[in-house]
């Protein structure tokens, strides 16, 4: 049985990601958000389920699709929104944008525009914590497509050989941009690759937050105990285009709609807690309203913030 507060936490975070992203999509289509924007809608259970096992002292490395991870790790929506708008009040003072969102104060060490760029960085974070003698850990999120980068291999081999406290979380959403993952990935289950490193490879339904949470918990405990890394594969599906504006000519709208309707992680959570009576409809509605307001405030904050001054081009380069 789950603690009620934890369940509320799950829901709050998932809804926070969903509403934030829906707003982002709208703003991006309107042209108010510059740059490339990749949405996490439909995959909320993964970041949420994993990060609820972490403290602020644990690290995460994220991807180009990083808003969900950032929110799940505890970042503030207003500074995130401002960053996406390119404003100086954003987390990166407008220098990063969506693909480089980060909140180092909560251990969110960065989204990454380089697919597969985070594997080794997370491993390094884990190495550092091991050297310092803490029991903090690192988590790296990555896609099915990223599992074919050489960095996947180099990082996991090193982490496994050195028994580092790092968890490799594959968000297998069946697509790498315009390419169905099975066409370019030599195994159906990316978790199978764990065999080649002598570490556990675990598969969960990534749209079931309970499964994600439990599997991550086991992996986190293992890591904290010094037993080394885990490869955790969460099966999910990319609901939105690869980026906002993607013509999506490589699949049908129907396919996507059906997958979403039948397998929305938030709906599944709602059905679960309502039918088990763990949370009431009113409680859920309150959370939704609270989050809605929070997103609105974040937009206000971003809109009312200023763009960086030209002189700021030169700051933050060298210490």
């Amino acid at each position, binding site marked *: 049985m789950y603690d009620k507060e934890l369940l509320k936490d799950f829901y709050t975070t998932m809804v926070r990601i969903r509403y934030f992203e829906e707003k982002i999509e709208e703003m991006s289509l309107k042209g108010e958000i*510059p*740059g*490339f924007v990749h949405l996490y809608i439909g995959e909320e259970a993964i970041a949420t389920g994993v990060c609820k096992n972490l403290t602020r002292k644990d690290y995460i490395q994220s991807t180009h699709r990083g808003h969900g991870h950032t929110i799940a790790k505890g970042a503030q929506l207003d500074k995130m929104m401002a960053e996406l708008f*390119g*404003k*100086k009040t954003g987390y*990166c003072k*407008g*220098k*990063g*944008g969506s*693909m*480089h969102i980060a909140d180092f104060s909560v251990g969110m060490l960065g989204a*990454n*525009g*380089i*697919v*597969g760029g985070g594997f080794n960085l997370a491993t390094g974070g884990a190495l550092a914590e091991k050297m310092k003698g803490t029991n903090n850990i690192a988590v790296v999120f990555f896609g099915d*497509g*990223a599992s*074919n*980068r*050489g960095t996947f291999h180099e990082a996991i081999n090193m982490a496994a050989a050195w028994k580092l406290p790092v968890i490799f979380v594959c968000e297998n959403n069946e697509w*790498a*941009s*315009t*390419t169905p993952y099975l*066409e*370019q*990935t030599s195994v159906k289950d990316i978790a199978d690759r764990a065999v080649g490193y002598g570490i556990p490879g675990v598969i969960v339904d990534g749209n079931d937050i309970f499964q994600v949470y439990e599997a991550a918990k086991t992996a986190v405990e293992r890591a904290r105990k010094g037993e080394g890394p885990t490869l955790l594969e969460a099966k999910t599906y990319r609901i939105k285009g690869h980026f906002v504006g993607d*013509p999506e*000519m*490589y699949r049908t709208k129907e396919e996507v709609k059906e997958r979403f309707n039948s397998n929305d992680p938030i709906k599944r959570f709602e059905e679960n807690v309502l039918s088990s009576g763990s949370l009431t409809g009113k409680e859920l509605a309150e959370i939704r309203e609270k989050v809605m307001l929070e997103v609105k405030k974040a937009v206000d904050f971003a809109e009312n913030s200023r*763009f*960086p*001054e*030209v002189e*700021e*081009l*030169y700051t933050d*380069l060298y210490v």
Partner: protein
Amino acid sequence: MRKISFSQATLEAMQEEMRRDKKVFILGEDIASQGGIFGQFKGLPKEFGHDRVLDTPISETAIVGTAIGAALAGMRPIADMHFADFMGVCMDEIFNQMAKIRYMFGGQTTVPMVIRAPDGIVRSAAAQHSQSIEAWFLHIPGIKVVAPSNPYDAKGLLKAAIRDDNPIIYFENKDLFRQLGEVPEEEEVLVPIGKAKVAKEGKDVTIISYSIMMQNALEAATLMEREGISAEVVDLRTISPIDKETILKSVAKTKRLLIAHEAVKTGGVGAEIAAIVAEEGLDYLDAHIVRVGGKFTPVPFSPTLEKAYRPNTADIVNGVKGMF
């Protein structure tokens, strides 16, 4: 003459060369299903099949590495880099394998392949998706590097690159893909590799540029014309081997030199050109040389900063004015 886009020009180049030579094929990420981010591969699989237009895993070392291997085995691959920014992933394959294989094996083989590398700033794509890194490759013997500035050259240089038996890196500016320009339909368009082009004649100053900054260079020349300064504009077209002769000839005539590129100024292609002139054409000069280039920072995301980062027409005009 008919006008087509830069993107279309590269597409035609591919089509014509793939029809001409069965050994030519292309591989890269997300090029087949949807035709590439900039539409530069649209329709190719339909004509040539998925056997010659290969979507790959996200594995840049494999993309370039297999292209090299296929070239050694007699094919003529074209490897698409998606964004030039990702070339760091396969830099070893590029500089330690592709560039050196012919030489270090004593000429036993050729490595006929092309790397297409979309570069430059495009709508706030930020630090890891906006770079221009051609200068690194100027410093690597064994490859040739080209960078067209317009649809005609885009077609002609790509066709020439595909036919060349040397490994070639083809930098194509992302913001140029939609640019329209005249490209004849009737005749075959081939632009020789290794030759710069005088895009506009002039007598008071030479502006050397390439790729997208050619637009700024020509715009600056027009603006200055009104103020009585006659600028000669040289489009480098090929970055390596650099066309010293055309450069020196123009500077000998105009006595002044400005070089402009979007890439970071420090350590950029402009440095090499300035050095060549300081070595071999110093006596021609009536004024200091000016380089215009990207600021010494990563490319920032916010539009205000991105704009401040990017060199522009005013920088060129001011640079030239400072010479008089």
